[in-house]
């Protein structure tokens, strides 16, 4: 351990400010202090498609949207206990993000796996938002340690533990990596481009498969044999 080079590490208070976000560079390590909330398809659908009012004014919920469903339990006295938290894959929520940024004023999305660079440029940049990815995946215990208190779990009965809107008070919540910056660049895609350059070489010398597969081509008129 201790072999990886030191990375630039930033501690940010929520709600996050435009100035702080503008200073973030791809691959920076971020820890958060303050309030964050979870919202994924259940909450998006309820507010954006069904027109429900947010359970609290967004000014009180903060501007950091975590794509997550926690390992949590409701105790018999009704109190809520969160043990570990890891993110859920974000790319599935891309269709909601434009309206979500407009409705919520979110400036930071935390999740797993990021979204496409195109999404960043067309959805995130106009909203002044950035994407932070959780690490691993997943550092459930470390992130769980960073949760100091469950401030609220809205719509818990209706949406269930996974989809409810959890409002969490966090301290040194991380590590998180800056995946998209203010210009809409993606750390994942930058790495993909570098890795893709070597892929053809891996297949050199391997003979063609007997049976081709859909997916390798989108042309449904082609035969597979």
């Amino acid at each position, binding site marked *: *351990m*201790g*072999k*990886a*080079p030191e*990375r630039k590490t930033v501690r940010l208070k929520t709600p996050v400010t435009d100035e702080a976000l503008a200073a973030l560079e791809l*691959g920076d*390590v971020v820890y958060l202090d303050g309030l964050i909330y979870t919202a994924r398809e259940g909450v998006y659908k309820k507010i954006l498609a069904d027109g429900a009012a947010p359970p609290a004014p967004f000014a009180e919920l903060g501007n950091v949207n975590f794509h*997550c*469903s*926690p*390992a*949590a*339990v409701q105790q018999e006295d009704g109190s809520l*206990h969160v*043990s*570990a*938290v*890891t993110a*859920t*894959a974000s790319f599935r929520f891309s269709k909601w993000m434009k309206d979500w940024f407009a409705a919520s004023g979110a400036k930071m999305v935390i999740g797993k*796996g*990021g979204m496409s660079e195109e999404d960043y440029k067309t959805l995130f940049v106009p909203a002044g938002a950035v994407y932070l*990815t959780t*690490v*691993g*995946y*997943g*550092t*459930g*215990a*470390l*992130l*769980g*340690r960073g949760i100091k208190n469950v401030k609220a779990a809205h719509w818990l009965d209706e949406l*269930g*533990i*996974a989809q409810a809107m959890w409002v969490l008070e966090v301290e040194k919540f991380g*590590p998180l*990596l800056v995946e998209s910056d203010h210009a809409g660049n993606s*750390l*994942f895609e930058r*790495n*993909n481009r*570098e*890795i893709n350059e*070597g*892929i053809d070489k*891996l*297949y050199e010398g*391997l*003979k063609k*498969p*007997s*049976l081709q*597969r859909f997916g390798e081509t989108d042309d449904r008129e082609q035969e597979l044999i």
Partner: protein
Amino acid sequence: MISKEAAEQAAYEIMFKAGIDIPDDYLAGIKGMAAAEDGDLSAFVLEAMLENYEAASEDRRPMCADTGVPRYYVKAGNEAKIEGGFIALEQALRSATARATHDIPLRPNRVHPLWRTDHNNNIGINAPEVEYSFEPDADWVDITTVHKGGLFGTDYRMLFPGDGIDGIKRFFLDGMIAFGKRGLACQPAIVGVGLGGSKDTCMVLGKQAACLRIVGDRNPDPEIAKLELELQELGNSIGMGAMGFVGKSMVVDCHIEAGYTHTGGMPMSLHAFCLSSRRATMRLHPGGRAEFRTDPTWFTPYMRRETVSWEKPQSARQSA
């Protein structure tokens, strides 16, 4: 006789062990990869994961919030007797799953595929799965639980004999590259490969190879053992590491299990376990003694037999 209370308690305890404490073999494998990784970001991720395992054990909290789909593997000795029989055992496994989900707590991941009904206890139709195997000359029962994520890193393909080892390598690369990007496979992982069998057996063998064999274990067939190491090397030469960042940490180990298959085919399945490779085993002896371990020793010589009748090999390891 093994009491049903002992079975329930064992199944409950291994849920905690699996969810919280990373198995030693996998931990050693990740430490080795972290030391060898020269991709900056991939190395950072591995170090964060090592810290995470420590935090989980110290705090007694789950290492990952995605509980996956918790399930059980039961290996029963031919002479084992369980109070109430296997119906009582299955009841005990369900009860332990529900209790542990609440008490650890684990995320209640299990929902109906269409109605998304969630009983908040990881119990439902066909959940948790319980798979069985048997062992001659034994009076114990091994209960193993595995918590493996369920969305990415698994694939199946019907290959043909003519595709040969090249076909296996091609599919292996396809899967590793596709699921490795952005780290969807939660690599570096123990990668299980099922070869042969019927389609369903092929999937089962590959999954068991990933989840029930430990880092460093080799298939007893020397040619298959060689292929395991070759595939591991191949995966680590993609140029990709943890989270899909540039690096070389993809495959902590590769395990292959074979099953006799249709003469015209060579089906193959691919399963990546994850950075939170959660497995734990308890052996229950008659009279109440229980022994915990992290190596399920699922694939015994008896499991891999290929003859009509079973004759214990001279060199067979005692009780697997």
